[in-house]
């Protein structure tokens, strides 16, 4: 069992959540409530990582991270090293590929709140921030939790994009999914088996907990 790779994956998952969740709550809410030109394209952009092969996403990210790209150049100037094949680059990629997993459940959760209930908040004298805090977030909470669990589980399991933009540098970019591949290549079936089982268990546990949790909240809403 490669604990370094496992902990790196967990670290990447938590860092992804920290960056992605506030962004998804904001973006999911905007997509749920606002009508603006180009909204369909924004939604398409969010969903893109679902349909594109990970190698294609990885390729474009690599190009974007390259020393000759504006982003890569800026990063190099600010931090003294490139984005490609670094943990930061991996984190950036992870945020991008997890967008649909995080944004879509949040968007659906906000969209499911009846408009009249939000309006009732406003005519009860609540300023918009208070409606968000007291009405929308508590009602959208199961969707937000689902988004977080999906994002975390997906980050642990992401392979293609990680391999493309991170390579396989132990302790820096070698996540548990990459480590499994690495072990299989080295005919170390036992280590690969153990790590696969751990990943499987974590994923089943995460999904099981989300389902139980959201069902319980749903029941509470329905009959108290």
């Amino acid at each position, binding site marked *: 069992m490669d604990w370094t790779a496992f902990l790196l994956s967990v670290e990447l998952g938590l860092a992804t959540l920290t960056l992605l969740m506030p962004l998804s709550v904001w973006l999911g809410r905007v997509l749920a409530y606002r009508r603006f030109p180009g909204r369909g394209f924004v939604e398409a952009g969010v969903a893109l990582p679902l349909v594109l092969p990970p190698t294609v996403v990885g390729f474009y990210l690599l190009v974007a991270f390259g020393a000759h790209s504006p982003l890569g150049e800026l990063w190099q100037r600010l931090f003294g090293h490139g984005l490609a094949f670094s943990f930061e680059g991996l984190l950036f990629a992870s945020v991008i590929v997890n967008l649909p997993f995080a944004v879509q459940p949040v968007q659906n959760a906000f969209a499911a709140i009846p408009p009249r*209930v939000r*309006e*009732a*908040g*406003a*005519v009860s004298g609540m300023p918009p921030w*208070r409606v968000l805090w007291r009405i929308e977030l508590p009602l959208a909470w199961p969707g937000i939790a689902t988004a977080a669990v999906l994002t975390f589980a997906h980050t642990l399991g992401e392979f293609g994009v990680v391999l493309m933009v991170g390579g396989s540098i132990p302790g820096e970019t070698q996540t548990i999914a990459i480590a499994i591949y690495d072990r299989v290549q080295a005919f170390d079936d036992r280590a690969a088996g153990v790590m696969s089982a751990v990943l499987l268990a974590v994923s089943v546990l995460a999904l099981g907990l989300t389902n139980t949790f959201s069902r319980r909240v749903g029941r509470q809403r329905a*009959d*108290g």
Partner: protein
Amino acid sequence: MAEPGLEVALAARTPIPLDLSFRVAPGELLALVGPSGAGKSTALRCVAGLHRAERGRVRCAGECWFDSEGGRNLPPHRRAAGLVFQDYALFPHMTAAQNLMAAMGHLPPGARAGRARELLARVHLAGLEDRRPAELSGGQQQRVAVARALARDPAVLLLDEPFSAVDRATRRRLQSELAGLRRSLSIPILLVTHDLDEALALADRMVLLHRGRALQEAPPFEMLARPASAEVARLLDLRNLFRARVEAHDAAAGLTRLRWGERLLEAAHAPHLAPGEEVDWLAPGAAVVLHRRGRPSVGERENPVEGRVVEMLPLGDEAQVTLDVADPDGHTLRFSLPLHAARRNGLAPGACCTVSLLREAIHAMPRRAA
């Protein structure tokens, strides 16, 4: 100067056309009635700040909430309006008491729980403070919605079809509760309803809306007795609407003569109608008096009209009789009378009878250009 009450003037072409203005005095209940899509709810939402009309003004208790010319449009949370939604829109994750307390941002936190209990008791929900909306019946949810609308101590109470989602028996009970509650309120109340009976039971005045336009504004019973036009009468679903021509006025006798086909009718004096003018006239059911068979009846000479019974529908203790009165347009005359009276006078399909149309109740109105 600070004008008490609610003052509304709205105009818009899209998405829903609006062209109306009205005032509601403190303690008064004004009903906006009209068919679906007439713009009633939109007008109410404009008052609450949930919808913005293209042009207009909304002032309440001396404060300007909306003025398109002055570029002023307060957001809903800054307008002291309590709104009861058609489907109540309670906060599903909060208890009844929390629903009310959420609307008490103007009170110090320590005072909110007590005030919520007090308001819930006022709408007969004492003891149910800790129930969530899903644990309450439809009628109880409606009461929580009313209490929540009052929780912010509003300067106007807005009711958007508040009784449409409950069964008939509950509706009647809630209506009488509201009638009781409003006696203790000294703020203007605006009720939106498509149910005329509801407006009759609760409103001091009503405004009839059609396609966003106010067709008439009057106390409910006055509007029923004296609709401003045939269009109003039709929207109010009034029967016994006929066409005639003004023959002459007799100011001394206080009446106006109408030429109705071959007949000459005496109607309530309507000097605003020009002789020779084509008019619509209305005979409310209460204005039709059946002549007793074989015996002279009171008022027999007042507009006697002969007819043949087309249909007689027993409705409980009453009979609804439809007469063919040889109207040039083929319209029939309908009236109700006690079932036993109908039987005693031998009313049955095909039978002939004579009725009087009481002069004072005949209401003539100008024809609208279609």
